[in-house]
């Protein structure tokens, strides 16, 4: 990793200067120039110079190097959410490319710093990852590579079972359930409104007191239940309650911490890439481009926003949405008047010269995630002329076919794909299922089934952590069922529609 050569350092200063002028607000950035081989290595580790050893990085490296050898792909840019922000430049790229990458990186950096989903992420993740690496290596020295790696595989297979919003919620810490055996109710704990004694029967009528007692009784009942309410942070639950030894717990914690660190990037993929592309195009075309560089620049940018049929390109989608928002707010096409207007013609011509476009997109980049971003701004006007469609698998044709071009269905599908980062929502509901210390999970089914062989293999992995039978309630081919794995056998039992939550 070479020190940044002078011409690039100067370039960085120029780019940062313009970026600041436009209002971008970023962490200090450290650029490093890498040859393609090192670039592939670093990229395999997700941009981190030091991570715990695992074969999947080797697999990623294999893929990246082949992509490079066969000329299928080339990594232009790699940036990590850290303070200071680290970004990598590919050695031998043209100056135009480097300039563009720098502008792109500045916007990512700004996004990391300002978007609310990133606000709780570890900002010294480079160090943290290095610590993880040391811990895992130590465990490997002590217990053997194979054993540790196998356990990491197990943990990774449930790394998606986290609650992405939990960093924003204050929750009571998890602790072992109090087994009091108490069934009588402590009357002083029943909620009543403050009042004078002679008003008691009016302010707190007997029916109300009875309902409050019932509530308390119910909550007492739940005190015996673990967890007291369903939680989708399955990893956290297992860390606290699964019978793990020290190193196993440590590894599970590492996997969880990294999962939370990466979650915001999955939640804001479209926005983040759109934002970066928006700014690199703006900075390049308005400030940085020399006339001789235009063709090269246009070539690369058209690659970035290339639309392969049947795919959604987050760079393109995000870019166009940000431009759409800016354009609307510039001409005042928002607010009650505009939304109330039913005439599409008029809406398209709407112009109050509000000029709030730039202000608005900065606000959006701070407070939105992909789900809310699309929910709010993916409108019929935006979609019109852009030829969106849904496709589905046609079993008789044995291929994917275009199934609809209906706006509401497309939007619904888009939002579904983005909800919970496109992952099924799964809660731990009971740790003492059937009163036999079995783990009971519930898949909050919303129309799409789980991939069956994967679900089975994942249950096996959870069994290795929980060490008692594990169950998951889900829906398979419209049948409500509980899949179970008891360490030897998989079983599937049908269950009533309203049961088992």
């Amino acid at each position: 990793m070479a020190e940044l050569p002078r011409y690039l350092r100067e370039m960085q200063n120029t780019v940062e200067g313009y970026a600041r002028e436009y209002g971008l607000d970023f962490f200090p950035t450290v650029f490093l120039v890498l040859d393609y081989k090192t670039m592939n290595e670093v990229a395999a580790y997700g941009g981190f110079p030091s991570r715990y050893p695992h074969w999947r990085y080797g697999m990623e490296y294999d893929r990246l190097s082949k992509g490079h050898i066969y000329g299928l792909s080339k990594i232009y840019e790699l940036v990590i959410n850290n303070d200071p922000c680290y970004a990598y430049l590919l050695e031998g790229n043209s100056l135009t490319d480097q300039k563009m990458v720098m502008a792109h990186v500045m916007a990512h950096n700004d996004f990391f710093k300002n978007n609310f989903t990133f606000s709780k992420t570890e900002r010294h993740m480079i160090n943290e990852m290095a610590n993880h690496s040391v811990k895992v290596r130590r465990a490997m020295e002590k217990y053997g590579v194979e054993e540790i790696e196998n356990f990491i595989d197990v943990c990774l297979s449930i790394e998606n079972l986290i609650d992405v919003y939990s960093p924003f919620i204050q929750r009571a810490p998890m602790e072992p359930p109090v087994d009091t055996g108490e069934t009588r109710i402590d009357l002083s704990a029943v909620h009543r409104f403050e009042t004078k004694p002679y008003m008691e029967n009016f302010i707190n009528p007997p029916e109300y007191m009875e309902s409050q007692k019932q509530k308390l009784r119910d909550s007492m009942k739940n005190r015996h239940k673990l967890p007291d309410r369903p939680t989708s942070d399955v990893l956290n639950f297992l860390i606290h309650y699964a019978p793990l030894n020290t190193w196993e717990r440590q590894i599970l914690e590492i996997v969880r911490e990294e999962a939370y660190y990466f979650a915001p990037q999955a939640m804001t993929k479209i926005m983040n890439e759109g934002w970066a592309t928006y700014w690199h195009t703006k900075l390049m075309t308005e400030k940085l481009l020399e006339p001789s560089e235009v063709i090269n620049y246009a070539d690369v940018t058209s690659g970035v926003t290339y639309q392969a049929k049947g795919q959604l390109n987050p760079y393109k989608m995000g870019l166009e949405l940000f431009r759409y928002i800016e354009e609307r707010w510039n001409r005042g096409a928002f607010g009650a008047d505009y939304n109330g207007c039913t005439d599409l013609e008029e809406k398209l011509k709407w112009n109050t010269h509000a000029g709030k476009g730039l202000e608005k997109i900065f606000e959006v980049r701070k407070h939105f995630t992909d789900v809310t971003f699309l929910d709010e701004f993916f409108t019929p006007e935006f979609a019109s002329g852009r030829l969106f469609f849904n496709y589905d698998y046609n079993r008789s044709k044995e291929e994917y076919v275009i199934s609809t071009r209906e706006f509401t269905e497309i939007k619904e599908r888009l939002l579904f794909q983005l909800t919970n980062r496109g992952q099924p929502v799964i809660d731990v509901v009971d740790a003492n299922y059937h009163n036999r210390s079995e783990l009971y999970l519930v898949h909050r089914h919303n129309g799409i089934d789980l991939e069956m062989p994967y679900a089975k293999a994942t249950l096996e992995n959870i069994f290795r952590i929980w060490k008692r039978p594990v169950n998951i309630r889900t829906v398979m081919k419209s049948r409500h069922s509980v899949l179970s794995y008891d360490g030897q056998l998989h079983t599937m039992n049908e269950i009533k529609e309203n049961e088992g939550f």
Partner: protein
Amino acid sequence: MSQKIDQDHARFKQIVKGRIKTDLRKYISRGDMIGKQGKDRVSIPIHSIDLPRFKYNLKDSGGTGQGEGEVGEGLGGDPQKGDGKGQAGDQPGEHGLEVEFSLEDLAKILAEELELPNIKPRGTRTIKAPQDRYNAIRRTGPESLRHFKRTYREALKRQIVMGTYDKDRPVIVPIKEDKRFRSWKEDVIPQTNAIIIYIMDVSGSMGEEQKLMVRIESFWIDTWLRYQYDGIESRYVIHDTKAREVDQDTFYRTKESGGTMISSAYAVTADIVEKDYPADEWNIYIFQFSDGDNWSREDTNRCFSILDERLLDKINLFGYGQVKSPYGSGQFIHDLEEKYSNERDNLILSSIPDRDAIMDSIKDFLGKGK
């Protein structure tokens, strides 16, 4: 930094190898790697190396795309796999993984799984291949082959003898006569050579599935024998009622129809062997695949006489694999068994009822170390 990725990469390769080993039977019966063959490498699609997790069934969930097209129109290919063309590449994950593997490694895995013994080449059947070795010294030669040390030594000797050597100022200047050059000698290295002749029945009763089975099996046999011999040649013969020699491509693709006269193929094969492969220089392998529905008993007798008189005494191994087809009587394998049951240990019969049996059949053929 490179140290680390090397480790993880090696681990990954090791895991892939292990996976191929455990799933070898599956790979063999699916025929995944055929047709993805390079000169000495194959790429193998690995289906299950990714970590399992709770995820949506992709075929159920479909997706959203952008572009031209009528409702109901197919997209062509799997959009979820994505060719990622032109896209800034940061999408990990869902790509189907293909791993490159050398045929040698594949042969080793096959051998371990099937417990195949190494082949002992027959007798002194070697041909001699000349090879140049640079292990001599000459007084003349091109400058590029000058032997520095020897030249120096000669010059030193000469200077000492002539008394021009000054040990306080030891400058050695070689003259033309001092120069020594590397040179080569021709070594004759014995090389074991082998020839495989594949015979396939392409009569009307051999369907696509049967041919695929033949293809898969011959791919593996080929892989193994190539690993065992330095120089190997393959020849292909197809037949219905008449036989002819073809190239590899035609061998697998031809769809003929009509009856079956196996003797015609034997005759062509015997001609090839007699013409090009003298038995004292070559290890000869013949593999025949058919559904065993020969034309007549008379023709079968003709086969026997060709085998006895022209083939079996000269070759290492004659493997007859009978694939099951819905039309054939499958009589030929019984005839062969009756005639040769214990007489010839270089004639191996194997029946291949379906794709899952391919692996056992390979073991039948190669398990004896012939």
